[in-house]
């Protein structure tokens, strides 16, 4: 079935985003110009970097500048974030309609919070945040 662009636009507020796009273009142009301006001296000059020199020396204990860290912990941390991030996103529609839904809408949300709290407590108890291992 063919749906014309005008039909889609009729039932949406796509044009509300027009100023956002305009602002995005202005911001993009500004950023590119700023970067070109800053990179004029990129290869020509030597700049005193004493202030920028941040703590990049070898660790006398391990003898390395960069420590090996457990990749597992990152994956765990990120999956925890995915769990609660989606939980947070679910709350937003409910939060807006809190007064209309009343107590009938409140108890299912409490059940939902209890369910993901169980997951949260399990994750914390299993040592997900224990980075020193």
């Amino acid at each position, binding site marked *: 079935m063919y749906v014309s662009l005008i039909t889609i636009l009729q039932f949406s507020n796509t044009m509300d985003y027009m100023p956002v796009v305009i602002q995005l273009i202005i911001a993009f142009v500004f950023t590119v110009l700023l970067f070109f301006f800053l990179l004029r001296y990129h290869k020509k000059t030597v700049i005193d970097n004493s202030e920028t020199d941040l703590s*990049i020396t070898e660790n006398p204990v391990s003898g390395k500048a960069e420590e090996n860290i457990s990749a597992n912990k990152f994956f765990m941390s990120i999956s925890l974030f995915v769990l609660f991030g989606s939980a947070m996103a679910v709350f937003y529609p409910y939060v807006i309609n809190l007064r209309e839904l009343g107590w009938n809408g409140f108890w299912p949300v409490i059940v939902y919070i209890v369910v993901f709290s169980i997951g949260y407590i399990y994750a914390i108890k299993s040592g997900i945040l224990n980075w020193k291992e």
Partner: protein
Amino acid sequence: MSVCYGRFLNNSFYRFGKLQNGNDTMIILEIMAFVVTALEKVFLGGLIIAILLIVAFCSSYFQNRNIFKRNYLSKTFVPNPSVEKNLTGIGRTKNNFLIYSSGLGWVLIIILTVSAVVPWGNSIHLFGQTVDLQMASVNVDVLFIIGLLSTGILGIMTKGIDKRSPYLWTKVIRSASLVVCYELSVGFSIAALLMVSGTMSMKGIVDFQKDADWNFIYQPFGFILFLAGCIVILSYSTGVLQNNQEQHQHEDAAKPERRETGLSLFVRQLVVTILSVLTVSFYFGGYDIPFASDVKLRNSIGSNSTAIIEGTVLLAKTIAIIFLFSLAGKRVRNIKYLQLMNFGWKVLLPLNVLNMVVTGIILLIQ
């Protein structure tokens, strides 16, 4: 026909007063209205960006007095010989300059884009037309802001990639995972705020708080949680995990406090500025003039003068919050990483959920 352009164009049709049946002259008028509205938005956007940049420059000046010196901002992009010699590891094998610089650029772009949905004052009248001081109202302003700002994490993660980066890749990744955790907390505290105001439009949230009926009064605990999350995010927003790494404590003790320099400092101050504006709009009434009724003021001295006062008031409130953020940031940078991580996951997040539930119960009882 005109319906299909949505609210953006309809506003401009009402300006010309010819929203009737479609005919040939109507099409020309439509195009004219589109061009005029777009030009107005471009001008307004430029003005907003200019104000933001000026405030960010001034606040960077108070962080580091060298900001106006020549070549200072380009320090970020200049290869650092001592760094290149000492560092090997992930992301440092070759020159990934494009990725390294695009991270900062992306943060700059999203910060300036977010400023479009912030209301900077009520409408003004120019040349017989009404101009809203909010560039765009997209119906889900708050979601738009959260979604856009959470991609700022890319700006942190790309910072450790290039050869010339003074930051370690592992440090950068760890600070990114910390920021993710605190973003979650801030999201929950905003959810509790939305319960009170009942709308996602920024204009609606600000209008809800007019005449000193600020959300801060209804959400004092939520505000403290929001502030705590924001302060940690700001301290780590451009990938800095400096003093609090346990493996580098031996040298941290010897050196004085290290500071960000160059463009990263400026971008961080820009993030501070926009987050302060958002804090003011969420909790302190936005452009609402304290100790005065906006409607009465508009009737007595006219809407244009009132809009200027409102903008000034918003700026003054923003500068106060910027000072708060910069004072607190220095302290946060001295806290150890693991302490912050534990605090974020084990204390701040449960407190935020609890705050949300209690707010819901109180609102439903009333």
